[in-house]
Structure formats: structure tokens, C-alpha cells
């Protein structure tokens, strides 16, 4: 792949005596949506954490825009995650004390934007994700599906280059899951963000451009299976 944005090569990682990744490789181009599939405990979430610079691999390399993440300091990695990466998890992980609007504005505020400008942008994103009417509500006052759409808005509000989505529909019923995936995929394509989508559900993976499978800590690109 010539226009690779983020890549992992032969990554190994163990937690104690338990190997999580044993030679995993992955590459994603700008604007691409790639599903990482595999059974529970196969290492797919660990791969996502290595790609996002949250976990340092013991062996192998992870490079973002051609620069190895392992060469960056913790502070530089934190900054990269704030400016270039967006995150979406299974349970929204919104800050319960903040309103939905403040939650979406939070990444912009952490990047130094003034409150008014940040909240204006956040309000636009809430509208886009069809939850504009929830701006003043706290996460505890909205449904799981609504909270996850607020989560999508927060993941994309900084216009990241890569969004890491770890089982984003895992806690939702089918209808809400479909709605979240449709909005996430359309919004990511609009902004040109690449999406690393970890899921064990094939119907969720079908929103991606392609998929790789992780089994026993190793990756397999299904496109190459034919």
C-alpha cells in the first residue's frame, strides 16, 4: 500500500505469561475503514491499543505517517492522540458530570480552543449525529444509542486523521447499532478520517472497506485468502 497512514509490522505483545499478539501486521490508508475481526481474546483490542500508541509492543514496529511511535515520548504520544486520533468505545465513556455538549466540546477544549468556539462546533456535531436536542442533558439522562451517537460526535469533533472504534455497537440493540454504524461511516467518509473498527460482528464489519482477522495473536488479511 503506497499511501499508508498507519501501519503495524510483526507486532508482539504479552501480558505476563499470556501472549496477546504474536506477529500481527496491519496497514490502513487515509480515509479507509478497516474492520479488525476475531474471536474474544484473539488480540484484536490489543492490536488497536498498539496502533493508537496506548500500549507499547515488545517487538515489531508501529508507524504513523512514516514515523515509528516507539521513538516518540509519552508526552508526544499524548499530544498525537489529542490532535490526530479519535476514540470510540463500547460504552461511550462520556464524562457523567458534563452535559452532552460539554462532552463533545471536551477534546477541543483540551486542544486549547475557547469555550464558545468549542461548544459551537460541538453543537454542529451533535446536530449532524441527530442528537442536537440532547445538548443540555447529562449522559445518565440519555439512552445507550443516543449516548453512543454523542460518543461518535466526540470522536470526530477534532477532525482526527484516524478514529479507533473498539466494539462501538457491542452494548446496543440491532437497530441502534445499525444507526450508529451508518452515522459513523458516513461522517468518517465526509471528514476523510480513517477508521480502525474492532468488532466480532460481521454485520458491523460489513460497513468497512475490507477486514482483517486476528487469530491467536496473528493477523490474516482476508483479501489475500482467495
Amino acid at each position, binding site marked *: 500500500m503506497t499511501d499508508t497512514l498507519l501501519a503495524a509490522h510483526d507486532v508482539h505483545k504479552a501480558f505476563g505469561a499470556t501472549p496477546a499478539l504474536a506477529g500481527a501486521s496491519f496497514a490502513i490508508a487515509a480515509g479507509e475503514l478497516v474492520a479488525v475481526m476475531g474471536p474474544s481474546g484473539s488480540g484484536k483490542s490489543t492490536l488497536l491499543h498498539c496502533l493508537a500508541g496506548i500500549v507499547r509492543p515488545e517487538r515489531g514496529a508501529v508507524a504513523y505517517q512514516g514515523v515509528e511511535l516507539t521513538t516518540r515520548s509519552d508526552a508526544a504520544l499524548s499530544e498525537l492522540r489529542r490532535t490526530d486520533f479519535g476514540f470510540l468505545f463500547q460504552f461511550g465513556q462520556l464524562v457523567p458530570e458534563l452535559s452532552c455538549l460539554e462532552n463533545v466540546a471536551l477534546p477541543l477544549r483540551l486542544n486549547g480552543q475557547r469555550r464558545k468556539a468549542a461548544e459551537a462546533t460541538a453543537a454542529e456535531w451533535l446536530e449532524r449525529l441527530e442528537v442536537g436536542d440532547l445538548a443540555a442533558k447529562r449522559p445518565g439522562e440519555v439512552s445507550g444509542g443516543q449516548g453512543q451517537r454523542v460518543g461518535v460526535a466526540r470522536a470526530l469533533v477534532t477532525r482526527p486523521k484516524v478514529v479507533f472504534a473498539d466494539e462501538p455497537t457491542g452494548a446496543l440493540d440491532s437497530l441502534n447499532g445499525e444507526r450508529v454504524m*451508518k452515522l459513523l461511516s458516513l461522517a468518517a467518509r465526509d471528514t476523510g478520517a480513517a477508521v480502525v473498527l474492532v468488532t466480532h460482528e*460481521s454485520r458491523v464489519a460489513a460497513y468497512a472497506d475490507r477486514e482483517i482477522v486476528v487469530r491467536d495473536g496473528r493477523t490474516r488479511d482476508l483479501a489475500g485468502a482467495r
Partner: protein
Amino acid sequence: MCIVIGMSLGHTFLGLLEDHPSHGYDIKRVYDERFGHGRALHYGQVYATLSRLLKNGLVEVDGVEAGDGPDRKRYSITAAGVTDVEQWLGRPESPEPYLQTTLYTKVVLALLTGRPAADILDTQRAEHLRTMRELTQRKIHGDLTDQLVCDHALFHLEADLRWLELTAARLDELAAEVRR
């Protein structure tokens, strides 16, 4: 993809005619719009089905219009036709047993002949996911009827994929058993 073809074209026509009497041409047009999903009926199928329904007393000719071409017959449903379609709608469809799938046969043959069965499963998995991606794109950009038709197919493909995954996880066990 079409959900109705192969099940009962006759009953579908009866249901459409119960809504209102129609010419063969209009029945085909409405059928293609609602149920065809890219696979239009042939006129031969339409008129053969209507002839059969006529012969069985389930529809009758309601009127004939003369035109430039052949006369156009207008069909309406009979009381027997209404009873027939009602019974069909109330009867559950038999779930497919899916016991003798081609894929199962391929996996067993691969194991028997020492070929990589895991590759067969992965190849099939990739093909299933490719189809699921196409259906998902159609669903994203389609209306509610598109969504329902695509969901029907997607749930079936998902069931196949779950079988593929389970079989992949049991290949060693299966290999030992088929070689016994």
C-alpha cells in the same frame, strides 16, 4: 436478490390482485418494483402464472380492452383465490434444514484429501463479507424497503459466517473424525 422468487409467484400475484384488479403488464410492473430488486420477471413467467391461476379458478378475466396490439385482459381475484392467498399467508414457511451444504461437503473432502480446509473457510468468509459489504452500502443509501430486504439477506449471511467461524475453530476435531 429476490426473496419471493422460488417460493410462490402465484400467491404473490393473488395478493397483488386482491388489492385491485390489474392487467398482466401492471402486475409485472408492480411486482418488479416491490419484489424484483434488480431481477425483473419475464413476460412469459407472468402470463404462464396467470393462465395457471385462471385454469384453477383463482382469478378471472374482468374485462378485455382492445388496443393497437393484442387485446389486454384485466384480471381479478375470485373468492377461491382470496381463500387461497389467505391460507398461504397464514401458513408458516418451513425453515431450511441447511444440513447438506456444499461448503460442508468441501470442508470434509478437503480434510479427507489432506488439503487446507482452513483456506476454504477463509475464502468463503471473504466472499460472504464482500456480499455483506455490497448489501450494507445498498442499505445505507436505500429506502426502508431496501433496508428490510438487505437485512433479511444480511442476517442469513451472518448465520453462515457464524457457522464458518465455529467450523474453523473445530477443524482439528473434525479432521480426526473424518479420518477415523
